[in-house]
């Protein structure tokens, strides 16, 4: 699936998007896998309360299932308006 990063999450990880092969069942499982990769991921995901997640462009939470999902995005709380 495509994994997208925005704002300081993008800066910490160093890329705006990547393709990830995973069998993770939920968003939280995917986050656990990513954190084990490299320190930059561990840094970006160290405090999940500071992060929001969208699955297929819909805001959701970290226990959302990933079955059939094409795109997942991680970002800080939004500051529009």
């Amino acid at each position, binding site marked *: 699936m495509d994994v997208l990063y925005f704002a300081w999450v993008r800066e910490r990880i160093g890329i705006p998007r990547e393709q990830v092969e995973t069998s993770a069942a939920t968003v939280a499982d995917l986050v656990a896998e990513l954190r084990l990769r490299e320190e930059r991921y561990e840094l970006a995901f160290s405090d999940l309360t500071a992060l929001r997640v969208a699955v297929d*462009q819909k805001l959701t939470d970290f226990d959302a299932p990933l079955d059939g999902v094409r795109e997942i995005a991680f*970002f800080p709380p*939004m*500051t529009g*308006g």
Partner: protein
Amino acid sequence: MRVVVQEQPFDIGAETTNFAAGHKDMGAIVTFTGIVRDLPGDPLQAMEIEHYPGMTEAALTEIAQTAIDRWKLGDALVIHRYGRLVPGEMIMMVATASKHRKNAFEAAEYLMDYLKSRAPFWKREITDAGESWVASKAEDEDALTRW
């Protein structure tokens, strides 16, 4: 309903005139415009706005449709810019049309509250002292509870 996400400036006069045209059964039009505000003590050089193409349009459309249904609006308009803006520039505008003013005002406030924390935009301030992401405010999240 019209939702626009664009980098270039918009003309608030032309947008408001276009929005108001053709709504003979609507007695009230409310517009709100957000402006890039300079920072006291640490002058703002620019504000950079990042967004999530695709999701941004979908989220704004859903928020606007909810407002139309709930306040029985004749129409709603949301324009939000992204990219690099300087103090004094218009960031965004909303407009609502309804039979009477109360619904138009309330719906505009609802749109603003949801745009602040449910539309995927992120602001970055660039000042003489450096650059930083604007943190979300607890009061913006709290504002949603009244709806």
